[in-house]
């Protein structure tokens, strides 16, 4: 029962608010300390007081005894009584008796006290009895005991003193408790306030989840450190919370972005006319756009299951596998032309490009491929190529077949002229001359036409040619014409170019030949030079001839385009067309700078590098 209530009290104390605890602790400590101190002082005082009293009474007894020696010696009880009566001031002295020769000699009895002297005691000491203390003291004269003084002292003084002290103790206790209470109210704030602040902050944080809340630091003691630690912890949580939030937000944002990007890609992929697919880094297709299904008539699942082989033309399957395998191995983009089977069973040509998409670490994250239907284009190209080939073939065979009858015309007109000259009149001779001339011209035309068609028919490797050498050979071939026209031909050092000798010679021969042909009365002066244009060489043939009206600058490069009809400037109008055709085949350009009557500068460019040869179109 007692234990139970004790436990209850302990629990009650344990659950009491800190302010109450502090007050209780302070009050209990103070009270206990005061009690102990008071009882200590009281006990000490009791002992001290008794000792003092005993000492005091001994001294008193000695004085009385000494003062009584005369009276005792000379048998004067009156004087002795008077001496004893002086003790009246000691109110707690009950009785004092002087004994001489064992019988009472003189005495003092406190008024109201029983008129008895204590029994004589020769031990000369202070004896504390139950309620009074007795002092016996010998009256000695010259070393001889002549009597005894006995004094009885009541202990009322001790009791009174204890009472007084008790009162004082209680008073001090109450006062000190009051002061302790008042002080503790002030002092406990220094402990209570920081804790209250902490509790407040904790509660707020718990209720609001707002980690920017800080406990107010009130002091710099352990509680202050606790507050600081708490605040630091809060700021740590706050920053972590923030970064968590940010990370979460970023992640959501990134996810959102990714989703958006994905949607955008899907939309883009679906809206494009091309067939789009994506594949995993390992090459497994994970997306086909709608165009694939529309084209093949297969579902995504069917497409994925069947794979490329199911829709590719059997002849393209092997090449396709090789390309894909290489791409997966090297990670490089590739493009391939192949045929896919349409829903109706027709195979159609497609140009497929596949690119690897890489992430930040340069690792392949996916493959993206697009297939464009180039079937029509491919067919057109094929038709065009066939037509061009036919045309070329026709032109070649036509000009070749034309040579035979023209040769006959020329030969037989010469035979007539030789054998039957005498049989013809002047008119016949003239007609025969026209016939021979026409045949000769016709043969020239056919020769040039043949050269023109041959200008394009070039295949195979192109090697580097020294243009200077080619120029010298050309000039050697033209030496008769140069000599006849009394012309001067000069030239700079020419570069090495990627051009076939026969073609370069064709161009140079035509240009220099034109310069010799379209001359003024002045002897022709021709200069050949070369200029570095960066990606290409520009070769220029400049003359001092009749020049060309700028309005014909383009026209002159057409086939059979002649500006001059008169006999003075013979030609078929094929030379510049051949030049144009050759230069363009090599990826170059040909043009003319000229003013009528002031000579002309023909320029053409030759690329510095090979590989720009255009295949016949």
């Amino acid at each position, binding site marked *: 029962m007692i234990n139970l209530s004790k436990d209850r009290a302990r629990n009650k104390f344990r659950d009491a608010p800190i302010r109450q605890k502090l007050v209780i602790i302070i009050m209990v400590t103070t009270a206990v300390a005061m009690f102990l101190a008071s009882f200590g002082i009281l006990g000490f005082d009791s002992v001290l007081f008794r000792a003092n009293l005993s000492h005091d009474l001994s001294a008193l007894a000695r004085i009385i005894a000494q003062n009584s*020696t*005369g009276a005792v*010696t*000379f*048998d004067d009880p009156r*004087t002795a009584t008077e*001496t004893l009566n002086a003790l009246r001031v000691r109110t707690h002295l009950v009785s004092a008796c002087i004994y001489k*020769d*064992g019988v009472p000699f003189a005495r003092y009895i406190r008024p109201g006290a029983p008129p008895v002297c204590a029994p004589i005691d020769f031990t000369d000491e202070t004896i504390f009895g139950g309620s009074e203390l007795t002092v016996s003291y010998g009256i000695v004269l*010259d070393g001889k005991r002549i009597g005894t003084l006995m004094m009885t002292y009541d202990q009322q003084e001790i009791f009174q003193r204890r009472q007084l002290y008790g009162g004082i103790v209680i008073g001090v206790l109450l006062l000190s408790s009051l002061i302790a209470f008042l002080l503790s109210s002030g002092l406990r704030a220094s402990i209570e306030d920081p804790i209250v602040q902490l509790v407040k902050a904790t509660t707020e944080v718990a209720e609001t989840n707002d980690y920017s809340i800080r406990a107010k630091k009130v002091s710099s003691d352990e509680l202050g450190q606790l507050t600081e630690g708490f605040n630091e912890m809060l700021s740590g949580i706050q920053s972590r919370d923030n970064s968590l939030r940010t990370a979460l937000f970023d992640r959501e944002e990134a996810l959102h972005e990714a989703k958006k990007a994905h949607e955008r890609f899907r939309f883009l992929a679906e809206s494009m006319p091309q067939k789009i697919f994506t594949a995993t880094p390992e090459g497994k297709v994970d997306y086909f756009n709608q165009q694939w299904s529309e084209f093949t008539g297969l579902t995504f699942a069917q497409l994925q299951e069947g794979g490329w082989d199911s829709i590719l033309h059997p002849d393209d399957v092997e090449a396709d596998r090789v390309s894909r395998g290489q791409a997966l191995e090297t990670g490089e983009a590739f493009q391939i032309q192949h045929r896919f089977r349409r829903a109706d069973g027709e195979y159609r040509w497609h140009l497929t490009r596949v690119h690897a998409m890489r992430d930040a670490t340069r690792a392949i994250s996916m493959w993206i491929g697009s297939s464009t239907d180039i079937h029509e284009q491919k067919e057109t190209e094929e038709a065009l190529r066939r037509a061009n080939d036919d045309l070329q073939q026709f032109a070649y065979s036509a000009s070749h077949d034309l040579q035979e009858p023209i040769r006959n015309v020329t030969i037989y007109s010469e035979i007539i002229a030789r054998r039957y000259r005498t049989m013809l009149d002047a008119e016949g001779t003239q007609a025969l001359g026209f016939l021979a001339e026409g045949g000769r011209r016709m043969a020239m035309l056919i020769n040039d036409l043949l050269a023109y068609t041959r200008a394009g028919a070039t295949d195979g490797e192109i090697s580097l040619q020294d243009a200077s050498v080619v120029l010298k050979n050309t000039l050697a071939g033209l030496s008769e014409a140069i000599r006849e026209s009394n012309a001067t031909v000069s030239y700079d050092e020419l570069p090495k170019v990627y051009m076939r000798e026969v073609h370069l010679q064709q161009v140079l021969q035509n240009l220099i030949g034109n310069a010799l042909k379209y001359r003024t009365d002045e002897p022709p002066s021709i200069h050949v030079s070369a200029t570095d244009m960066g990606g290409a060489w520009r070769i220029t043939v400049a003359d001092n001839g009749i020049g060309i009206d700028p309005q014909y600058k383009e026209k002159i490069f057409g086939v059979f385009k002649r500006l001059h009809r008169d006999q003075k400037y013979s030609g078929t109008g094929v030379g510049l067309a051949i030049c144009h055709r050759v230069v363009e085949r090599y990826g170059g350009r040909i043009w003319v700078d000229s003013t009528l009557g002031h000579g002309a500068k023909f320029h053409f460019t030759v690329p510095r590098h090979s590989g720009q040869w255009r295949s016949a179109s």
Partner: protein
Amino acid sequence: MRLTALYAIAFALFTGTACGAADAAPPLEYRLKAVFLLDFARFVDWPPGALGALDSPFNICILGPNPFGEELDRVVTGEAVQGRKVAVQKISRAPSPGACQIVFVGRPEDSSIDIGALGRGILTVGEGEDFVRRGGMIAFVVDNRRVTFNINWRVSEAAGLKLSSRLLGVAKTVIR
């Protein structure tokens, strides 16, 4: 033994009856006075030199007739004052200086001796009311059938003797 004797003395004194024990013995009054005479010595300080060497006796001299008989000799036997043995001397003339410490004047009516001129360092004790007026220091008187004494303090002071206040306290009268 002594206590019984004292009881007897006190009884005799207060009742005032002289028992008349023995012819040789002096009356009770003188037996008491003999005790007192020795006791006076215990309440008096003698001036330096007045007591003589340590082995010299403390002399109580009786000048003139001896009223104590053998009683005084009996009282002082074995007693000592200030470390000196007490002796009783009978003298008929004024003592030479240093010979007596107490002089009991047996015949106060004898005017041939100038009590006041006995000299320094001598306690003069006599009897009767006149004694102190004639220059004596302590005089036994019987007051109301009780043996007491008067003291002439002036004379004792002049003689260089210091009388204890306890002695003065119990005297009947003190001339100052």
